[in-house]
């Protein structure tokens, strides 16, 4: 479908003249105005010591569920978490580290075997985005597990860049439960460090706690459209 709507769109007519009008008005408006230099006297890097603890604390401040585990414990932590949440249909993006993927498979298979049921709707199953899931299929999933591009300690933010083990943006949006695994070496101290590391050409999603609204008498309610539960496993 690329370009079809654009070809029929009013490019050459109204908008071409709009473009010239706007640009000439701008030229006239700022003529003779002095330029302004930008001073960046703010912190562009902060001490990374204690970043993991700070990250854990700040993510938890958003009412996300946080676990900090040692490197050897990550598979166990993933399995325990999935046992507790028991998502029936768990979306697993391609490119998840094999150790985590194995933990996911055995947790889901164990639950399916426990239930003794035939695979079918409602039975525990892993859902892959290959071939690409339709919106309705994605809506039928109730959880997703991903890695991330990086974490920001000062703000408790996780950034996804649709890279390996993260999948396209909708995967972490439609299911009601998001389990995210963050490695300690992915955690940076502040926002400037994060912006410096990220690639603007990739679609980015910055996540700071579960979806929330304060629109009704300023009462905070978690989970309007995005996942109502965000669970984060931090691996030292």
């Amino acid at each position, binding site marked *: 479908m690329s370009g079809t709507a654009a070809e029929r769109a*009013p490019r050459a007519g109204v908008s071409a003249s709009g473009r010239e009008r706007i640009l000439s008005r701008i030229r006239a*408006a700022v003529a003779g105005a002095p330029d302004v230099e930008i001073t960046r006297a*703010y912190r562009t890097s902060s001490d990374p010591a204690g970043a993991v603890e700070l990250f854990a604390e700040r993510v938890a401040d958003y009412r996300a569920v946080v676990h900090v585990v040692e490197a050897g414990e990550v598979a166990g932590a993933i399995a325990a978490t999935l046992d507790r949440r028991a998502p029936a249909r768990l979306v697993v993006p391609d490119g998840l580290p094999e150790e985590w993927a194995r933990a996911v498979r055995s947790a889901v298979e164990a639950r399916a075997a426990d239930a003794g049921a035939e695979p079918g709707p409602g039975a525990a199953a892993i859902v892959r985005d290959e071939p690409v899931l339709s919106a309705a299929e994605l809506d039928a999933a109730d959880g997703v597990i991903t890695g991330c591009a990086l974490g920001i300690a000062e703000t408790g933010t996780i950034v996804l860049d649709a890279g390996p083990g993260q999948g396209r943006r909708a995967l972490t949006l439609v299911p009601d439960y998001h389990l995210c695994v963050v490695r300690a070496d992915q955690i940076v101290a502040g926002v400037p460090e994060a912006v410096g590391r990220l690639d*603007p050409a990739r679609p980015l999603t910055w996540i*700071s706690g579960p979806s929330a*609204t304060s*629109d009704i*008498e300023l009462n905070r309610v978690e989970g309007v459209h995005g996942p109502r539960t965000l669970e984060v496993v931090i691996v030292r």
Partner: protein
Amino acid sequence: MSGGNTFLGMPAFPRNAAAAVQDSQLRFNLRKATHTIRGKRASVVAELPDWTELRAAGKEIKDHTLRNLERYLLQMEEAVTAAGGHVHWAADAEEANRIVADLVKATGETSVVKVKSMATQEIGLNEALQAEGITAYETDLAELIVQLGDDWPSHILVPAIHRNRSEIREIFHDKMADWGRAAPEGLTDEPRDLADAARLHLRERFLSTKVAVSGANFMIAETGTLVVLESEGNGRMCLTLPETLISVVGIEKLLPSWRDLEVFLQLLPRSSTGERMNPYTSTWTGAVEGQEFHLVLLDNGRTQVLADEVGRQALRCIRCSACLNVCPVYERAGGHAYGSVYPGPIGAILTPQLRGMGSALDASLPYASTLCGACFEACPVAIDIPEVLVHLRGKARHPRTERLGMRAAGWVFNRPARLARAQRLGGRLRRFVPERLPGPLSAWTDTRDIPDIPAESFRDWWNRTDGGAR
């Protein structure tokens, strides 16, 4: 909303404000909202040791961009096009609406989902699309409440703050069925229940609608990237699920480089919702994940604002709403009195500049302030709102005596030291303050006590406590 988006023909600010101050529900809600957010904001701002430097950089980045706007807009156009997107230019509201309507029609669709965007409210896009047989569905919880209630937003950040939970329950119960999935049986007025009803009502729509319309908080000239900050996830739904995405963005939303986000992603969430970071921020560059992307660059009066040497600083605004939450006039009068999508102190300087001061309402807006200066102190990009107000008062057609008075005020406000002195004096004299304000403000004090002059001005408090840090 037959009156259109710009609320034209609304009575002037004093009459609206007088009506609003009598509405005790609105006043109670607004007071609670502004004070709660104000407190949260102060504590997360105080957390950053370099807030002053970030604020200075924010101001300079915006001023530098505005000075070089032509160059950066052309760079933006090139970068978006190179990344597979399409760029359109709209000199005014009519052109923008025409472009969006034609783009939607070209897809063959008759409905769009929308994520809150002040620019599209400003141009009356929903009404324009309606006239072309296209239904625009708002998807922010607050905007949904406003749309279902056939109502106007009253606050930039919490547009439905004038509604309480039982009113919202009633609106959902009565109106949801007309717009799509009906409210569940036995809907209570618990916020959790109401949010779940909205989730269900909108989920079907997100999954099936093929075209989305958004605004953007920032666009990056260097890379062609668009940036949207939000809380609920409806933005992500609109940005990722539909096949076609149309973003209508004011030309002043531009930032030169990717790096500039490191400043604004600290300034905006903390000033706005008083959080260290908002729940979701999405960035995308051109057409991504198979989507078709259109960017509509909107002027609609902005170049006119840019031409005013004093007034152009209003274009730095990042719509955080911090100035609303500290404004004593806004707190009492409410957002509707400003007769525009831009309420509060920023609305008082932006609306008359964007629209000109032809109507009684717009000419009265620069007077909708006590010039206390709290908005300037709170503004993350240091817009000197009192200065612009005084400047606009000089231009508005008002009685000569008032213009003279304003010139005196201008004298006070042109010098921060004089302002500080005047405020301290006001603090000491506050028990002598008359019950009625003089001039155009008397209309709204007719029914209300005038705002208390704080014993200690914001400026003094700020200095004494190091921005609330102590």
